[in-house]
């Protein structure tokens, strides 16, 4: 399969949901998240031809560097570091367990970078459940697995609403952050959902 298709759909879904992401960030943050993700997504879309012709790992690395150098804010380093780590850790044709391992490295890298841990209302709270779901599957991605990963990510993002914010710009809100979905988690879930969808169509 060509990674161009899931890059196209993941970036497009971020662009399409920019207003929703901004609204989430306005509730507990500074209202820039939608625009940040859109800026990164557009920059990646501008490199699609070049990404298409690269191996997956190189494409992930380029996308990560693009995030770092175009987005700024928390999202730039966070999504950028995640992608760069995946690029480093994934084998050429990864299976679910490979992905789980790479996500584990990604989470560790993000914790080193941003000092946040799982449970503190950041996108780590989407990455970790997805990692755990993939951990014990050694088969090739099936339609079923893709559907449950997708659902797991969306549910995990939704579940951040019940958390207090401890890291990130919303942390000063403490208790007041409860009831609001973490914007970065929603972005992460949208990306994972889009990737799953596009893998299901073109396995």
């Amino acid at each position: 399969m060509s990674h161009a298709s899931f890059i196209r759909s993941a970036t497009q879904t971020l662009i399409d949901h920019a207003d929703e992401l901004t609204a989430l960030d306005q509730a507990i943050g500074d209202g820039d998240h939608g625009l940040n993700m859109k800026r990164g997504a557009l920059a990646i879309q501008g490199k699609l031809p070049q990404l298409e012709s690269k191996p997956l790992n190189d494409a992930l690395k380029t996308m990560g560097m693009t995030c770092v150098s175009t987005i700024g804010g928390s999202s730039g380093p966070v999504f950028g570091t995640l992608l760069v780590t995946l690029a480093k850790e994934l084998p050429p044709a990864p299976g679910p367990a490979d992905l789980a391992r790479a996500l584990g490295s990604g989470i560790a890298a993000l914790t080193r970078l941003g000092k946040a841990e799982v449970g503190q209302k950041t996108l780590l709270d989407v990455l970790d459940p997805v990692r755990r779901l993939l951990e014990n599957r050694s088969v090739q991605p099936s339609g079923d697995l893709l559907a449950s990963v997708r659902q797991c990510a969306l549910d995990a993002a939704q579940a951040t609403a019940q958390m207090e914010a401890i890291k990130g710009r919303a942390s000063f809100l403490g208790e007041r952050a409860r009831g609001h979905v973490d914007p970065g988690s929603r972005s992460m879930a949208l990306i994972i959902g889009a990737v799953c969808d596009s893998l299901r169509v073109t396995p």
Partner: protein
Amino acid sequence: MKKLINHVDDVLAESLDGFAAAHADIVSMGEGRLFVQRRGLRKGKVALISGGGSGHEPLHAGFVGHGMLDAACPGHVFTSPTPDQMLAAAEAVETGAGVLFIVKNYSGDLMNFQMAADLLDREHATVIVNDDVAVENSTYTSGRRGVAGTLIVEKIVGAAAERGDNLAVLHTLGETVNKATASMGVALTSCTVPAAGGPTFQLGEDEMEMGVGIHGEPGRRRVKLTSADEIAVELTGAILKELAPKRGQEVILLVNGFGGTPSLELYLMVHAARKVLAAAGINVVRHLTGPYVTSLEMAGCSITVTAADSAMLALWDAPVHTAALRWGM
């Protein structure tokens, strides 16, 4: 949304161009608008570089110039700049004595400056400013934000850099000033991020947000609007609790407007804050009052107090020539 703008996508570029043109005698614009740099770099002086999201003007570009910053990296509105910007700025203004980064404590700023520092192959150090005392619980480390006190750190460290202090000394000084500085703010209205198109939060006609930062975020508590005196008691009280100054301590008092509060009200707050400080036996020996560290057009203000020794005061008084702060030259 009512703003003096053309297209939301061009706000930052056009504003930076206007700024660079208006202050062409003291600053120049870096390639690709990645940074604003001081004209007339001094060889062998430690390069001071700061930066952060836009929307806080004059912070930081307004503080580039003699006696303060060598470069400032403007991010998008309320979005930290990218590591490329800090690297490009460091390349442009480092002259052999190393780079000191001055960073406000927000996760985005920390991560982007950290990535830049990791990639920079020149001697460097970082001062993290976290003067906001709105967040009481000390475990909320990343919630202790860098706000208006950043100006005071930049001014004092900038003066020491100008006289030739080395990187290690400046680093220590920056941390000392940060520790001696505490701030807290209140918002009467929200601001509107141009690209968002509407206000970040909605406040009732009789409400205010107590303990806001400078990113248009909602504050720590939403409470009924009270009098200037009561607000001053809460803000200044929290600051004094943190700094725990001795009676007779000399301080710098910064009453900072968030962008939509007129001078008339800011000076009224100076009066109110001075009453609280006087009651605590604190001696205000320097004042700064105005919209220096803003959140776009937000109405409200923050109070910052720095417990200063005579060395800090001398550095505060040293000549400075930037777009927004100028004295002695």
